[in-house]
């Protein structure tokens, strides 16, 4: 550490620049992963709120609950337990009575005997008492309690009686209402009773007929329209940034090492052990990376305070810590080449002249 600290102190400008570059890269990685998580959260917040473990819908729906139409005969064959809920999910527009502007939502119809309905937590208002009352997501901020709204293709006027949080499904805010209204809102005939079944049981739902298909949680989420593409894009961006930081660290350390090669060779001639010089490079890299990642984390925290509400970010501390550790390891990987160069220094090279 002695050499490393003195070196950094002596060459403040150079090391500050390196730390600034790596710090900014880690800041970018933190922010992009927060953004990725935030967007993923907008897709799946409701699904997570229901403690979903598996889902069942018609085979034809191709994993997309919004396109699934279940008939009474399908439902009767599935003996629902207390930890399974019948749901009717459909994308829809809502507008206030007499107002032309519309908001896109996901209408989710529930039965009052099912667990999802019973577990709903409201930040204000009360649960619907009859089937013309609905509760809306708090992110749907064009509407408030006691508003009268029209939903989807249904002409009925619904009254907002409650507000709930974490109600987002496939990037849209959720309106919860009665399952019986799902068919008219979706505009299908009443031979269709629901879109599917959500289960919080550890054992996966089983399809009782070959018209139906069950999905585990992961497949269910991956089949949300656009979800997988989004996750892949972000995973790609983050891996690429980590790769870039690996290259940057390697290049920086390589140049630094090459420039001080004559001095390192003299130290070797004077009997300073290889191990000491290699350990010094390791420590120096660790120091640079720790400071850089700390700066990245600091900037991220600062940004979190000032970022507009409309930007969907979600800071997951365990994941961020994992990324930080990943950055440190990346830096140390970058030190491998310089450490190899040092271990191969021939002291004689500098002695002639």
């Amino acid at each position: 550490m002695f050499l490393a600290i003195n070196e950094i102190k002596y060459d403040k400008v150079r090391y500050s620049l390196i730390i600034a570059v790596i710090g900014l890269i880690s800041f970018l990685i933190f922010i992009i992963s927060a953004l990725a998580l935030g967007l993923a959260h907008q897709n799946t917040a409701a699904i997570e709120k229901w403690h979903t473990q598996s889902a069942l819908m018609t085979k034809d729906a191709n994993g997309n609950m919004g396109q699934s139409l279940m008939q009474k005969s399908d439902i009767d064959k599935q003996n629902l337990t207390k930890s399974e809920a019948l749901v009717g999910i459909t994308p829809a527009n809502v507008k206030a009575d007499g107002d032309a502007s519309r908001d896109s939502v996901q209408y989710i119809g529930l039965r009052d005997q099912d667990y999802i309905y019973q577990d709903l937590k409201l930040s204000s208002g009360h649960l619907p008492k009859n089937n013309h009352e609905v509760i809306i997501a708090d992110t749907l901020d064009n509407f408030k309690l006691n508003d009268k709204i029209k939903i989807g293709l249904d002409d009925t006027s619904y009254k907002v009686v409650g507000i709930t949080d974490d109600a987002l499904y496939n990037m849209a805010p959720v309106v919860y209402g009665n399952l019986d209204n799902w068919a008219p809102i979706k505009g299908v005939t009443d031979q269709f009773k629901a879109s599917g079944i959500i289960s919080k049981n550890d054992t996966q739902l089983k399809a009782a007929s070959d018209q139906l298909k069950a999905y585990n949680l992961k497949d269910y989420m991956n089949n949300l329209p656009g979800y997988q593409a989004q996750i892949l894009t972000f995973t790609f961006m983050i891996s690429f940034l980590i790769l870039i930081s690996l290259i940057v660290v390697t290049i920086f350390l390589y140049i630094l090492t090459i420039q001080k090669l004559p001095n390192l060779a003299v130290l070797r001639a004077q009997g300073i052990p290889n191990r000491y010089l290699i350990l010094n490079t390791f420590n120096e890299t660790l120091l640079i990376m720790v400071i850089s990642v700390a700066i990245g984390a600091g900037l991220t925290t600062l940004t979190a305070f000032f970022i507009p509400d409309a930007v969907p970010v979600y800071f997951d501390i365990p994941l961020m810590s994992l990324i930080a550790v990943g950055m440190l390891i990346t830096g140390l990987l970058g030190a491998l080449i310089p450490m190899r160069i040092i271990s191969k220094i021939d002291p004689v090279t500098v002695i002639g002249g």
Partner: protein
Amino acid sequence: MTTLTLNNIEKTFGSGQNKVHALQDINFSTAAGEFNLILGPSGSGKSTLLTILGGLQTPTSGQVQINNQNIQDLSKKKRENLRLNEIGFVLQSYNLVPYLTVADQFTLVDQVKPKDNISKDDFESVIAELGIQDLMYQYPKELSGGQAQRVAIARALYANPSVLLADEPTAALDSDRVMQVGQLFQDIAKKQQRAVVTVTHDVRLKEYADHIYELVDGRITQVQ
């Protein structure tokens, strides 16, 4: 008592048309208490000889013995320890670590070799004799060539080596300083009982040496 011996050393670089006989038929021996001066023009093989003496380079043929032990027979690790503990090098260039102050050049030695370095009193007198006591908090780039060379000498002595090998230690010094360094090397040999070998083309050091050799085209002859 430390002895250092070269037996029939030969060193060639390259092969075929480009073959260079840097050293030929070198026999040399010294012991603690002696100040040896090896004089030679540029390209005569001085640095090559010194690095072979210090175990940094292996000769093409012949043996290097320190205390009757063949250096070639030692493991890499043992040779490294030998350099750290027994041999002090003053090299022609790059002697000092640029990002350490003069004081920290010595601290670095303490870091890797906490024990058996020269006593505080000896250190004080060495830096006084070299006239570098006021340079302790300067960086090498703030030193003149001569000051840097004197710090390098102190640095080499700091680890309390039994052999001091110096390559052109007076190249950047004026005559007064050359006399002081000559006197210092004599003291290092006589009073501190070390073996000192200096290679140089600086004839001003002659009067302080016990033994003087001449190196011409890789061949050595004793002249005093």
